[in-house]
């Protein structure tokens, strides 16, 4: 495999990736995230693959991550040369023949069609699929997608997560390249500070300030950690982000390491996410092969390693000091702060811990600038946040909205209310440390301060809708049981 050492070899990889994303032959992709698989995506993939082989068809077939509309899985996307990407919903294995017939006649089975994408803003780059199909709705005119702004999920469901070339084709690793060429780490930290990006794990601390602490700490080695121990029940944003676009996480971490002077990176991921673990392992391997991770990254003399550690089913390990204790080989019990990890973290060395989603925002901010980032969201909470909209709601899935969007937009516009004509009673945000927000308060904007004011929290992004059949006493009992059994014993 080619090690990328200059702009020439970088562009060669990019061209190779583009030839797969926008090939001169038809391309079919199947959403192969865990939610797709849970609904039969593997069977769909195999049926398509078999039919393509049997017919000797000149069609490119690939697996991608989840596009967010989990309630319509399995999702299949078809793109003919020069034409828009057409997304098909609730596809089953027996639909394979019909889809391939649609590929040859350029008319997709109408009952499967969900929407089309003519061009896509990958934030780090733009992909133009093609114009056409006036009869098919554009993706962001559908209720579930209307108003969504995909910055974190910019690549999820559109590129093959197991192929680094496709990530590079949509502008991936360009931000890293720029940062290494500019060689002005302090200006990157200033940029992250100016963007006012806040930690997406829930606490909402300013990421730029955290990085600044680590950069100023004098010690060898320094660690950065990605907290992928997504433990809040009802939340699965991080799982999908990693399954759908693992390289964006690596790129964020490599940039973070360079500008803070860290030489070791660790991704602490839940053992309950085996597919995310596999995809991440593959991505780490590929990044090493291509010279983007390890020694002498991009031939700029920078060394950085990432190791992955699997958790073992302890909710409390999502707390940063408990996570560190767990990495050190102890039971995952939190330790008092101060000292903060930035002063004394893993093995007593300065350590920066950020949530998965925080890392996904780094390359976009570096590429498009702090001003661009702050255009979205509210003044105190700029940017977007991914939420898992689940429970008693018609459209379940992953939703990325500007911060400050009122709760009711999530529940009624995107989620289209409770199923079966029932009435929504409340929405639970923030996991076990959060709270249930009653239906009368759904005007509340979703940002760190507003939810805290109600006595809940935004947390990592779980949003569990409850309807009139759910008993709030029972829900309270559920959370008491949960926190009791997941207590660290302190």
């Amino acid at each position, binding site marked *: 495999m080619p090690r990328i050492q200059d702009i020439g070899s970088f562009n060669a990889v990019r061209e190779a990736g583009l030839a797969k994303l926008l090939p001169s032959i038809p391309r079919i992709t199947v959403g192969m995230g865990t939610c797709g698989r849970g609904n039969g995506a593997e069977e769909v993939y195999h049926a398509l693959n078999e039919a393509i082989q049997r017919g000797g068809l000149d069609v490119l077939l690939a697996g991608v991550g989840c596009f967010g509309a989990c309630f319509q899985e399995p999702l299949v996307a078809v793109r003919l040369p020069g034409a828009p990407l057409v997304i098909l919903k609730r596809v089953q294995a027996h639909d394979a023949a019909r889809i391939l017939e649609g590929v040859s006649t350029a008319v997709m089975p109408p009952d499967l069609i969900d929407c089309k994408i003519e061009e896509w803003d990958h934030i780090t780059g733009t992909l133009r699929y093609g114009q056409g199909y006036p009869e098919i709705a554009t993706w962001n005119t559908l209720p579930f997608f209307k108003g969504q702004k995909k910055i974190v999920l910019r690549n999820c469901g559109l590129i093959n997560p197991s192929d680094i070339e496709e990530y590079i084709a949509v502008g991936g690793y360009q931000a890293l390249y720029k940062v290494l060429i500019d060689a002005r780490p302090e200006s990157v930290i200033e940029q992250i500070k100016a963007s006012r990006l806040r930690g997406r794990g829930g606490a909402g601390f300013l990421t730029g300030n955290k990085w600044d602490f680590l950069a100023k700490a004098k010690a060898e080695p320094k660690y950065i950690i990605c907290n992928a121990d997504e433990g809040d029940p009802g939340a699965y944003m991080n799982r999908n982000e990693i399954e759908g676009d693992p390289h964006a996480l690596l790129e964020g971490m490599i940039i973070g390491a360079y500008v803070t002077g860290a030489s070791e990176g660790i991704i602490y991921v839940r053992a309950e996410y085996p597919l995310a673990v596999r995809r991440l392992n593959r991505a780490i391997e590929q990044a090493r092969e291509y010279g983007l991770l390890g020694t002498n990254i991009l031939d700029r003399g920078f060394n950085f390693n990432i190791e992955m550690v699997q958790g073992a*089913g302890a909710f409390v390990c999502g707390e940063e000091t408990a996570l560190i204790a767990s990495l*050190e080989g102890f039971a995952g019990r939190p330790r008092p702060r101060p000292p903060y990890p930035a002063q004394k973290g893993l093995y007593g060395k300065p350590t920066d811990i950020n949530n998965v989603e925080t890392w996904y925002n780094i390359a976009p901010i570096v590429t498009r600038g702090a001003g661009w980032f702050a255009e979205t969201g509210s003044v105190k909470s700029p940017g977007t946040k991914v939420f898992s909209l689940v429970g*008693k709601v018609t459209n*379940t899935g992953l939703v990325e909205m500007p911060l400050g969007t009122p709760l009711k937009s999530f529940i009624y516009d995107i989620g289209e209310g409770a199923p079966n004509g029932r009435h929504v009673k409340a929405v639970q945000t923030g996991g076990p440390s959060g709270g249930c927000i009653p239906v009368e308060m759904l005007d509340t904007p979703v940002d760190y301060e507003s939810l805290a004011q109600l006595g809940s929290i935004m947390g990592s992004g779980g949003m569990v809708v409850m309807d009139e059949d759910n008993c709030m006493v029972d829900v309270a009992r559920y959370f008491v049981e*949960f926190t009791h059994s997941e207590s660290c014993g302190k």
Partner: protein
Amino acid sequence: MPRATLNTAQAVLDDRERLMIDQAVARYAGRPGSLLAVLEAVQEANTHKYLSMEALRYIARETGEPPARIYSAATFYALFGLDPQGDNVVAVCRGTACHTRGSRDLLDKLCLDLGLSDREPDENSEADKLALTTADRRFTVRTVACFGQCALAPVVEVNHHILSHVNERSLQREIQSLEQGRK
């Protein structure tokens, strides 16, 4: 969760298991999270997917850590079991989305069907974190805090395969086919 006591698992480690532990300890030595990785590898390699007391003692010896520390970690994390698992492992998700869609009833019904309903009274208070194995060792029922499969709630994992939108009937059918099937 039932805990194995020091005298329930006195089986001596065989050479294969000892070699396996040696390799795991060597592979992860000095790396962050090494103890978790070793325990995960050893449990996964065990035929009955558990950590025997002998294995824990041997890990302590090979890593040079006090046995108490190894035992502390092995009993802290939900993923580790100190008792042999059944041939079939059924894991019911107890995440919030699954709860709102009836996973507690699924769990109760499953335990009832498999004759695991006579849980000891004090275990009821920990209904959300359990691992029970049938007397014939054919089935283990356990709970998981959340699989992160919330859009497909309620979900149940049967032998590492996720079933989505599960109801009592579909789960019963799945269990029946396992009962009639191999083993």
